[in-house]
């Protein structure tokens, strides 16, 4: 089983820490890491990151993390940057924004702030929209580790409800680390055990750490292909190549 962590928050201004995070991910058994990059990141930074990942035997997935304030800002960012990144996630901080992100086919991952339960808008309406657009619901497990006490009680209770909603509407769930420090990284099997706290069984959790994120990346790699037109439509051969035959 190949495991993916689509949310490894490496500090791009501290290459030593970046190396340590990627090395730790590789040591813990991940074969694919998604690194959030700001829009307009220079190609040389991406190349250097790819080089570090190759050194530790890990595949790099470039991820765009959008934090828009309004639906129009989200649409503008998607129009400009979608094709440049392998995975696009949206941190939904308002209901209209969450709904817009859930119905847009260009959005891959929907994430919500952990510490503010009122800003978690993953309800049945959101799940229905997400299931149509094939957007996945992302859970950062570093958030489960970092919150304590009553906040954790509330957070786990929200997560339990959200996972049930996602399951009943067939929305794929992606488990990511969301770690900024190597000590917040765990083995995929340990993360799967941790999901017991919000009522997820181990096979489902392992799927959310391996098959589902890998599927999201695979789908987007196909979209980035030059011959891609729309879902189910791909250019197989061009006129010139037909004549030369």
């Amino acid at each position: 089983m190949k495991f993916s962590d689509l949310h490894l928050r490496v500090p791009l201004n501290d290459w030593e820490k970046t190396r340590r995070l990627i090395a730790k991910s590789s040591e813990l058994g991940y074969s694919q890491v998604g690194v959030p990059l700001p829009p307009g990141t220079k190609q040389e930074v991406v190349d250097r990151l790819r080089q570090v990942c190759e050194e530790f035997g890990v595949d790099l997935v470039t991820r765009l993390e959008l934090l828009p304030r309004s639906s129009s800002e989200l649409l503008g960012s998607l129009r400009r940057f979608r094709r440049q990144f392998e995975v696009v996630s949206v941190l939904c901080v308002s209901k209209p924004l969450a709904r817009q992100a859930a119905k847009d086919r260009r959005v891959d991952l929907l994430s919500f702030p952990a510490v503010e339960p009122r800003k978690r808008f993953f309800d049945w309406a959101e799940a229905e929209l997400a299931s149509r657009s094939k957007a996945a619901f992302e859970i950062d497990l570093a958030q489960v580790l970092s919150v304590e006490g009553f906040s954790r009680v509330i957070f786990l209770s929200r997560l339990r409800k959200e996972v049930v909603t996602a399951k009943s509407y067939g929305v794929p769930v992606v488990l990511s680390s969301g770690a900024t420090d190597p000590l917040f990284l765990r083995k995929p099997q340990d993360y799967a055990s941790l999901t017991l706290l919000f009522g997820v069984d181990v096979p489902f959790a392992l799927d959310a750490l391996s098959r589902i994120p890998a599927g999201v990346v695979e789908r987007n790699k196909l979209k980035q292909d030059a011959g891609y037109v729309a879902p189910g439509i791909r250019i197989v051969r061009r006129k010139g190549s037909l004549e030369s035959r």
Partner: protein
Amino acid sequence: MIKYVRRRYLALKVECEEGGVDQRAVSDVVWNSVLRLFGEVGVSQAGLYFVHFDEEEEYAVVRCSHKALPMVKAAIASVTKIDNKPAAIHVLRVSGSIKTLGRKVDAEHREESKES
């Protein structure tokens, strides 16, 4: 009739930013984690026992009840601090007997040293 109690042995690797953790600190943090997440009933069901701790290598072997294994693994994964220092505990292997656990961990060690 005496009922046979099924147990599981877990090999753990302790990672602490500043190092120098002792068995007492590790056992306390695991106990407290089970207590915090699953309560007193959970701790009573877990049957936790620290079998061995290697201070140099920071490896530990913990025994727990077979039925409480998912609970203990979740509690171990949720540890983020030992003695107020940032830390993590990783489960290396789980086995039904100490003998097999030792064999599995040794085999893994050998494979890792071969690779490096």
